[in-house]
């Protein structure tokens, strides 16, 4: 069973990602937004849990009001340099109030994990050819941050009473 990082721990992953035309297997499944929109009826009858897997061009605002249905939303990073998923995560968390598991998948490396976490991801499926323990260490690269994001809703000057010169 593949291992992922979830809430700072390495755990085994039970979810199965379903491709574009594969039949739905049993258990917890992860489907694309496209399939979820097209095959709602079948999915509602599915015995296991259903999670969504978003890609860069998906508009998370289409899910407004529907997010309670998902125990898991994954955002796919086809290349680490494609940073759209960071904004998708912040819209899901900060604007739409999504509370379930938010998982980054795809080409994510140790050095992105800290940023991903700050944008609201709490689970990371690191590429299989990477050292997952090493990646976990990336979450602790920095202890101070300036901006407000999904982890801190206030920027540094609100979090700390800072004084002038």
């Amino acid at each position, binding site marked *: 069973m593949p291992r992922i990082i979830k809430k700072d721990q390495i755990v085994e992953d039970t979810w199965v990602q379903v491709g574009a035309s594969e039949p739905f297997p049993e258990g917890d499944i992860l489907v694309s937004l496209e399939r979820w929109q097209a095959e709602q009826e079948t999915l509602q009858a599915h015995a296991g849990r259903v999670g969504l897997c978003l890609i860069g061009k998906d508009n998370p605002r289409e899910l407004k009001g529907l997010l309670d249905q998902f125990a898991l939303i994954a955002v796919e990073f086809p290349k680490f340099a494609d940073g759209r998923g*960071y*904004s998708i995560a912040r819209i899901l968390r900060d604007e739409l109030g999504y509370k379930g598991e938010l998982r980054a998948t795809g080409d994510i490396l140790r*050095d992105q994990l800290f*940023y991903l*976490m700050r944008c609201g991801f709490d689970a990371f499926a690191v590429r299989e050819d990477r050292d997952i323990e090493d990646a976990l260490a990336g979450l602790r690269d920095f202890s101070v941050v300036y901006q*407000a994001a999904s982890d801190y809703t206030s920027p540094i000057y609100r979090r700390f009473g800072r004084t002038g010169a």
Partner: protein
Amino acid sequence: MYQYNELDQQIVDERVRQFRDQVQRRLTGKLSEDEFRPLRLMNGLYMQRHAYMLRVAVPYGLLSSQQLRKLGYIAERYDRGFGHFTTRQNIQYNWPELEDVPDILAELASVEMHAIQTSGNCIRNITADPLAGVAADEIEDPRPYCELLRQYSTFHPEFSYLPRKFKIAVTGATQDRAAVAFHDIGVRMVKNEEGEVGYQVIVGGGLGRTPVIGEVIRPFLEKPHLLSYVEAIMRVYNLYGNRDNKYKARIKILVRELGIEEFRRQVEEEWEHFREGAMMVPEEEIARLQSFFPSPDYASDAADDRSFEAHAAENKKFARWLKNNVSAHKVPGYNVVSISLKIPGTPPGDITDQQMYALADLADQYSFGMISATHEQNLVLQDIKNADLFAVWQALEPLKLAWPNIGTLTDQICCPGLDYCSLANASSIPIAESIAQRFDDLDYLYDLGELKLKMSGCINACGHHHVGHIGILGIDKRGQEFYQIMLGGSAMDDASLGQWLGPAIARDEILGAVERLLEAYLVHREEGERFLETYRRLGPEPFKEKVYAQNH
């Protein structure tokens, strides 16, 4: 200037630790070069033709004497005794060894400096008016807002993997010395009809392969909204900027494709989601940042001293320097002294370790310990008293830092070109040097008047050739170095893009072509007319005729 507190310091220290670990993993082979590349690029470490190049951030161009001394020390200890100031007010080292870079970053951190986000597809160093704080035409000192943006953009979790690099410039003056129309975002402090100070926000400007003059997205933005508005622009760009073709990935292309109206609509819709929230900058934070940039202790009687006049009457060299490199300051009796780094015989923007040490001392002695870097690759001592002008000149002269060519033809901007850059098609530094040598007669230069010559070694336009009064672009023509000339560009308030003059010119003829351009100008100019104005009045024909007529 801004001083780090323990939190700011912790951030740069942790960054050094992180990079030390990454370099270690690279050196022991745990990271391949492919894997290491994005990590080093986040720290301004590029691979050039012969060696690594490290680009160090100089936030909004402002340096303390202590920092400049440290930059000199790094040049001496880790490089070949010099550094290179860039068009984005940063400094580059051309010869560091990879294993030394973590130590260099630690040296920088010890004086509150870093190389964070000086490369990569993220928000780059914030640039500003080099006369910030002393310009007579200033509405408000922009530096506190630059610092606000610096902190906001440092390790921004959402915007560190943008479609492409992102540059922001800020000015607080009515005259634009920061080229705000040629940045991804340009911020201009303005007063509205009620007399309140806020920001005019410009978006989508830039040079590179597709030069574009930015457009105003919001004519007046209230002060507390600076960060939320920038965030809205960034988010729209991050989600919808082109990621398939890197030459179409800058925000200017997105703005152009959507049109400014539609782009504005999308930004303001995004902005609605968080404009009134935690991102509003409280007045106390602005006041806190402002407290780091107090007006120095100016002497009230500085204007009484006119001793420089007598010196100028006796000393022609000093008089020239005074006339050309010294400009007005907002406080009577004080002067802005520009230091040209376009010294004949050295590449534009280069400065030695010894010059840095000496300048740091001069800043301490005469200019409240501060120096600023300009986007024209020069340095500025901002606060020189009338009484000290002659002494400062006497000190600069033997350092070769009193060359009085500011604003003239040989105060040229030039990218590294073939000498260092692996993308170059042609040399630029040797051409700049030959121009500096050929036109070393100061009286001739002064007669030519204000002239901006800008040169790039390939179409990426790091030398900003599109906005030179004379722009020169190096190209490769069947393995030979050729140069295209463009005329009529400007990066100032009268922003314009230059126009191509005609066919490319061979390397050994480019100097002659520049000579003939200047001759054409001298023949056709009217009383008091600058090169740019003559060109704008007459168009390219007379210049074209002169340059190409003798080519046959």
